C-alpha cells in the first residue's frame, strides 16, 4: 500500500517537474508572432526562415535602445 502511494507521488512529482521544465523552455524561446487583420496569426520560432530575418532586427532595436 505504502509502496504504491510512494510510486504515485513520485510519478506525479515527475510529471509536474517535466511540465514546469517544458513551460520554462517554451517561455524563454525566441520567436516572432505576426497578427493579421483577418484575425489570423503566424508564429515563427527561432530557427525558422522567417524568424531568422526578424530576430536579428529585433535584437538590434533592443540593443540600440539600451545603449541610449
Amino acid at each position: 500500500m505504502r509502496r504504491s502511494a510512494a510510486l504515485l507521488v513520485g510519478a506525479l512529482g515527475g510529471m509536474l517537474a517535466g511540465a514546469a521544465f517544458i513551460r520554462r523552455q517554451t517561455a524563454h524561446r525566441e520567436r516572432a508572432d505576426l497578427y493579421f487583420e483577418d484575425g489570423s496569426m503566424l508564429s515563427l520560432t527561432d530557427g525558422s526562415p522567417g524568424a531568422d530575418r526578424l530576430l536579428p532586427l529585433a535584437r538590434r532595436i533592443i540593443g540600440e535602445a539600451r545603449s541610449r
Partner: protein
Amino acid sequence: MDAQHALADLTEISSQIRAAVVFDDKGKVAGSTLPDGEAFARAAADLLAAAEELKPGQSPLTQLEVATADGSVFVVRQDEATMAAITGPNPTVGLVFYDLKSALRSVKPAKPKPPPRKRPAAPGSKKTSAAKKATAKKPTPRRKKPDAS
C-alpha cells in the same frame, strides 16, 4: 491628445514598456520616449517591412511581437499611424498590446491646414449682394385680364 503626451501616459501606465515611438507611414516621427526617435522609428519600420514580406495571405499585418532573450519588440499599426515599443523579457503580451492600441487610438491624427477663410465683404463692395438680388427672380405680378365688356 498629441503623441508625446500619449507616450508619457503609456510609459506611466505600463511599467513593462521601456521605450516607445509613434510614427506615420512615411516615417515621420510624431513622438518618442528616446532622444533619437528617428532611428528607432526607422528600425521598427524595417522590422515591419520584413514581417510584411512573410505574410501568407492578402490580409495586412496589424501587429507583431518579436521576443528575444533580452526583451521584446512590439509594433502596432492603425490606419496611417504606427507605434513601436520595447519591453523586458517575458512581458504580458496581451496587456502590452492592449496598452499600445489604447495609446495609439488616443493620438490625434495631424490635421491638414484648413483653407484660408474668405475675407468679409468690404463696405463698398455691394456688387455681390446686388448681383445676387439681380439674379434672384422676383415673382412677376399677374396681370388681370382686361374685362371682355
